[in-house]
Structure formats: structure tokens, C-alpha cells
């Protein structure tokens, strides 16, 4: 655990730096937008309802969905900008609401006195109303700051590094030390901000300059101190840029993808490219991101493109699907499908050998009669996919209950009898380790899922890049991948370790 913790902590300065940058910019922009809007709303009363209404609706959109939506709205752009825009939107409601409440709550006698001594509306606002409403407004900013720190952890799935990387990669790879590091760091940051902004609030309420200076200095120290390692890393990186430029490698949110990203990055670095891995990208957006050219390469699965991008159902042989996918991606998106890596990671219904034998189930067709008394566990993504609809309709499956589980938890759940069947990934090391059986698919409802190497149009045009990666085609078979997955999922090794094993075996 100690070496793991030390490794996690070594990444803290950069991740904390990104997190603080996201928080500070989102909050700053949130204040600059919300306070003037709120002032306008106190002068044009009819604006109040619509403004707070819209901000309230934004708040009810699940945060992860809002972030993913930003990626789509911004044409597949991932990373900093979609994250910051979503965070700004989230920061607005408490600031808007408290500014409106604070300004309307200023004693009418004060407003009359200000007019009576001959202040203009603007002078009245700046010299009397805003200072008197300041404690309430700052309280709103404080609420907003704590929200933003929490929600900023969700920038990881849209490709922006943050403290969320600890949490998501920790959950993806069952590295609880990483998860806890992220949780503790984010909570600590939120508490520190809460305390410092509370000081500013007290300073405004008690008109205490000393408290104001203390809070302001604390905030400045936190933000500048937190940003320093990030700024230094960025500067030294800029100095070290080679002419080959940067290649952005993507990974979805499970161990196999982390390992393959390390394999791709290793291959590229060996050929003299500089490669950066963006991990735990939501699988719903990763293809759009590649199509938009903000990501350069990643590994997807032929059946996934077949079902979710091409909207095809039913299946043919693996080679036909692969050929059609390759042709479609080239014509439609200019994306190069360099070839199949040599293994398949299919969706497959699996159950424990003991239970399958007990019920006499060998294929999915055998499940139909038993399904009404069984529970199926799968990722929430799977339940939304066309493949699930195809399996369900082809075999007329009606399960007693659909249980949404994270990919890391579902294998344990079926082993322990908490669910009866799961939608396993066929390359997962835990299928063998937990003695699960993969049910046959006699009616070919599930398409083949050959792992394929996808390269964006822009990256493919770089001299030498495709050549550098071509040796990977056909180089990783089912057994090799399953073993590499097992190294991470069950033996607690890092994805980089597993990638090294794959490349040197």
C-alpha cells in the first residue's frame, strides 16, 4: 500500500493544480456573469423568475450529463473548455439567488437615505446596496465554491485532468488508495475554500479589514500555491516540445483500455513521438472526440462501432463486420482503422459454472424460460445499448430485475450470487478466475467485437505515425489480453506494468 500511496501522491501537485485552476476560473467567471445579471434582475423584476428558473433547471441536470452534453454541443471538443463551461453554469445559481436576495433585503430606509443625499442609481448600488448585501452575496459564492470543487471531479470523463482522475481511475482499476486520495484531496480543498470564504463573509458582515485581509491572503495563497506546480510543469513541457509534437491517446473507463493506451503510448514514444494519455473518457463520447480530432488514437471494438455508430443490428462474421466498419469510418469520418489487434472483447452473458449446471443452462436460448425468476447485472451503459435490445428481443428474455453495476463490481456480484447473470466482457481475466461460463449465442444476436486501432485523420497524416503503430496489428491474442487484464484487475499491478508485459512478452 505504501508504494501505491507514494505513487498516487506524486501525481497530486498536477491534479490539484488543474482542479484549483478549474475551480478558480469557473468561480471567477460565475461571479462576473451572475452578479451583474442579478443586479439587472432587481431592477427589471420580470427577469427574476425566468433567470432563477433557468439557473435552477441547469442545476437539476445531472452534472455528469451536463459535462458530456458540453462535449457534444462543442462539436466533440474535450478537456478544458467543456469542463469549464459546465462548471460556470453550475456555479451560477447560488450566486444569482443570493445576490438578488441580498440586494432586495437592503433596508428601504438606507436606499431612501442614499437617494436623499443625492446619489445616482449607480453610486447607490456601488456605495450602499452592494456593500450592505455583501455578506449574503459572499455566502452564495461560498456555496457555489463547494459545489464547483465537487463537480469538477467529473471533468475526468470529458478528458480534463482533475482530482477526479484519482476517483475514476481508482474505481475503474479497483485501486482504493487512488480513490481515497482523490476523495480526501477534493474534500480538503472544499473545506479550505469554505473556511477562507467564510472569513471573507465575516469580514463583510463585521466590516473587519483584518479578517478580510486574512481571508483574501489565504485564498490567494491557496490558488497561487496550488497553481505553481502545474505552471512549472507546463513551462518545462513547452521547453521540451520535440518537432514530432504531441499525440493524444485515449482510454475508456476500464482496465483493458488503460493497458492498451499504455501500449499505444509506449509504441509511439519508442518511435520518437511525445504521447499523452487521457484516461477514463466516457465511452459514449470517446468516438465523437476522435472524430472531432481532439483525440488522436484509441482502441475500440468493431461491434461497438457497428451497433452504436453505424446503427446496424444482427451480425455477420467478424471479418465482414471489420471490413464494413473500416470502410465506413474512412468514408464518413476520415478515421483510419489500422486493423485488429488480434483479440476480441465481446459482450457476453455469463454465469457461474455451478449455477449454470444446476439450471441446465448452456446458451442464451436456455435462459428464456428461467429469466422471469432471475436477476441480470450489467453496466448501465449496456442496458442502454442496441446490443442489449437485440439480445433481449432475439431470445425474448424477461428478467425479474435489471441491476445496474459498475464494470468492476459485477463480476464479484455474480460470483457471490447477488445477481444470476451478468453481461461480462469476454476478455476479462475474472471470467476464468471466478469460474464463470460464457453462454453461447446460437442466433448471433451479439456482433463480433474485435479490438481495432483507430487513428484520427489528422494524426494519420503525420509522417511515420501509422508505421510506428502498425506492428501492433495482430500482435495481441485473446489469451495475452486476458492475462494482462488479470494482472491489473486481480493482481493489483498497474496498467503500465501490464502494458510492459504485453510489449516484451
Amino acid at each position: 500500500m505504501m508504494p501505491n500511496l507514494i505513487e498516487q501522491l506524486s501525481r497530486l501537485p498536477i491534479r490539484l493544480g488543474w482542479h484549483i485552476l478549474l475551480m478558480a476560473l469557473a468561480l471567477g467567471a460565475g461571479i462576473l456573469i451572475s452578479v451583474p445579471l442579478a443586479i439587472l434582475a432587481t431592477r427589471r423584476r420580470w427577469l427574476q423568475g425566468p433567470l432563477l428558473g433557468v439557473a435552477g433547471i441547469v442545476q437539476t441536470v445531472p452534472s455528469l450529463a451536463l459535462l458530456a452534453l458540453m462535449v457534444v454541443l462543442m462539436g466533440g471538443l474535450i478537456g478544458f473548455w467543456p469542463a469549464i463551461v459546465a462548471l460556470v453554469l453550475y456555479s451560477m445559481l447560488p450566486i444569482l439567488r443570493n445576490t438578488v436576495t441580498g440586494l432586495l433585503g437592503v433596508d428601504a430606509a438606507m436606499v431612501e437615505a442614499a437617494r436623499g443625499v443625492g446619489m445616482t442609481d449607480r453610486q447607490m448600488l456601488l456605495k450602499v446596496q452592494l456593500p450592505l448585501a455583501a455578506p449574503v452575496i459572499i455566502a452564495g459564492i461560498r456555496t457555489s465554491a463547494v459545489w464547483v470543487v465537487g463537480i469538477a471531479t467529473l471533468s475526468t470523463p470529458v478528458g480534463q485532468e482533475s482530482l477526479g482522475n484519482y476517483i475514476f481511475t481508482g474505481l475503474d482499476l479497483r485501486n482504493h488508495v487512488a480513490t481515497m486520495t482523490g476523495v480526501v484531496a477534493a474534500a480538503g480543498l472544499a473545506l479550505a475554500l469554505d473556511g477562507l470564504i467564510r472569513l471573507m463573509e465575516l469580514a463583510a458582515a463585521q466590516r473587519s479589514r483584518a479578517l478580510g485581509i486574512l481571508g483574501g491572503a489565504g485564498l490567494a495563497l491557496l490558488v497561487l500555491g496550488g497553481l505553481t506546480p502545474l505552471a512549472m510543469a507546463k513551462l518545462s513541457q513547452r521547453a521540451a516540445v520535440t518537432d514530432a509534437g504531441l499525440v493524444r491517446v485515449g482510454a475508456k473507463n476500464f482496465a483493458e483500455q488503460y493497458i492498451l493506451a499504455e501500449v499505444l503510448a509506449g509504441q509511439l514514444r519508442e518511435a520518437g513521438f511525445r504521447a499523452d494519455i487521457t484516461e477514463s473518457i466516457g465511452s459514449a463520447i470517446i468516438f465523437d472526440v476522435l472524430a472531432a480530432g481532439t483525440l488522436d488514437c484509441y482502441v475500440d471494438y468493431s461491434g461497438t462501432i457497428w451497433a452504436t455508430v453505424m446503427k446496424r443490428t444482427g451480425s455477420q462474421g467478424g471479418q465482414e463486420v471489420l471490413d464494413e466498419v473500416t470502410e465506413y469510418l474512412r468514408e464518413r469520418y476520415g478515421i483510419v482503422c489500422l486493423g485488429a489487434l488480434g483479440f476480441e472483447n465481446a459482450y457476453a452473458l455469463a454465469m457461474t459454472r455451478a449455477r449454470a449446471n444446476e439450471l441446465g443452462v448452456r446458451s442464451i436460448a436456455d435462459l428464456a424460460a428461467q429469466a422471469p425468476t432471475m436477476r441480470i447485472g450489467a453496466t448501465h451503459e449496456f442496458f442502454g445499448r442496441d446490443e442489449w435490445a437485440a439480445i433481449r428481443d432475439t431470445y425474448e428474455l424477461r428478467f425479474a430485475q435489471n441491476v445496474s453495476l459498475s464494470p468492476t463490481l459485477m463480476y464479484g456480484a455474480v460470483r457471490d450470487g447477488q445477481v444470476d447473470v451478468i453481461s461480462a466482457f469476454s476478455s476479462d481475466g475474472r471470467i476464468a478466475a471466478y469460474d464463470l461460463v460464457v453462454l453461447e449465442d446460437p442466433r448471433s444476436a451479439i456482433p463480433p467485437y474485435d479490438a481495432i486501432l483507430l487513428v484520427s485523420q489528422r494524426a494519420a497524416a503525420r509522417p511515420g505515425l501509422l508505421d510506428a503503430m502498425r506492428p501492433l496489428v495482430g500482435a495481441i491474442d485473446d489469451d495475452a489480453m486476458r492475462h494482462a487484464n488479470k494482472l491489473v484487475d486481480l493482481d493489483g499491478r498497474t496498467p503500465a506494468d501490464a502494458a510492459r508485459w504485453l510489449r516484451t512478452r
Partner: protein
Amino acid sequence: MIQVDRLSKSYDGGATWAVRQISFTLNEGELLVLLGASGCGKTTTLKMINRLIEPTAGHVFIDGQDATTVDPVTLRRRIGYVFQMIGLFPHMTVEENVAIVPRLLGWPAGRVEARVVELLDMVGLPPEQYRQRYPRQLSGGQRQRVGFARALAAGPRIMLLDEPFGALDPITRDTLQVEFKRIQAKLKLTAIMVTHDMTEALLLADRIAVMDQGQIVCIDTPQQLMAETRNGMVATLLASPRRQMAQLEAIAEGRAPAEATA
């Protein structure tokens, strides 16, 4: 000089009138008290003079100039205003409160500073002791002294006072009334003060305008009002101070205040 000409205010398009066709003329250095019960329109009249409330009809002429044609912000900076609830800004020190209007007028810092010191001295608050204090650190009487200093800061020729002694205890009220009268006379301020306290009106006013239901019932000097017997309204308002005066005289002469139980 202030001329008020058929000044009127209605909040419902003329169905009812809060103030109706009020006219009077006030000479330089004169103190007029608007006296009447709550809701008689006296405060509305006062606020129409510096356009905190816009008149529905009628005019106010200040030194011959129609106030409705002047920018209201400029107008208000030329007129000192003392508020019923004192109206000091709680987030500003005594010094900052007093300096508001000079700063709004863009006076240089040195002149503002000197003026604050001069005014705090004038209202009996030693500057070194009080200038850095916040309103919450002052007694009610001290706050209204600051209120007077603030109203006087830019050297206005006209002062409007909305029940300025209403929030004070009787002893403080008496002291401040005397000091205000002294300052008003010394600076030859033309002043209009609103009150519902007949005794206060009699003691301070050069002339008193008695108001009822939005109109002036009668306007006269305190001496002539005291002699007045015909007007029932005025007689009622005067009954209380007259009775108190008789009782005080009786006590002073060692007699039992016979009317006390009457």
C-alpha cells in the same frame, strides 16, 4: 427662498389626494414646521420638495428656479436632508458618512477632511474621538448629530428635516433641539421640518403649517397660533401643551396640579 405652488400628489390617478393644492412661501433663514397627525401628508410634502417623491401637479421654486426642471440628483446634493430613522450608512465610519456629499461633489481630499473636522466640532462630537467610529458604536443622540453633520456637509442653503428628533429620548431630544436651533440661526438656513409634536413645533418654528387630510388648515407664527381659538383642529392640537403648561406652573408654585386627573 422657497415657493410652493399648488403642490399635489395622488397615487391613484386623482381619485384620492395624499397632498392637495398646497401653497406657501418661505423666506431666507426661516424655519417652517409642517405639523399634523400621521397620514396628513406632511412627509409627502417634504419629500416632494427634493423630489424623493415626484409631484403629481404643482411646482416648487427654489430661488425662483422650478425644481422640477432640475436634475433630481443635483437638486438633492444642494439640499440637506435629515431622516426620521437617521439613515446613517452602517458600513461607513462617522467620517465617511459625513463626507458623502462633498465626495459626490468631487471636492479634493484635503477640503473634505477639513470640512468633516469643522462639522463634527459644530455638532459637538470631538473629531479625534469620533471620526473613525461606526454608527453602531454611537448612542441615538450621537447618531443624529452625525446625521445633522452629514446634511450640512456641502454647505446647503436649505435643509429638510423629517421628524429628526422622533427617535430620541426626551433629554437628548431637548439638547439637540436647542443646538439645532442655534446652528440653523447661525447659518441662516432655510428649513422645513416635519413633526407631529406640537410642543416641538412651538419651540422651534418661525411659522407652523398645520396640515390635515392633505391640506394646510392654517399657517401662522407660534404666537398667533397660541392665540387662535376659532379653528377646532388647531385648538385640539394645542390642548395638550396648554394643559401640560398649566400643570407645570401649578407644580412650580407648590399647588396640586388640579387638572391632572381631569
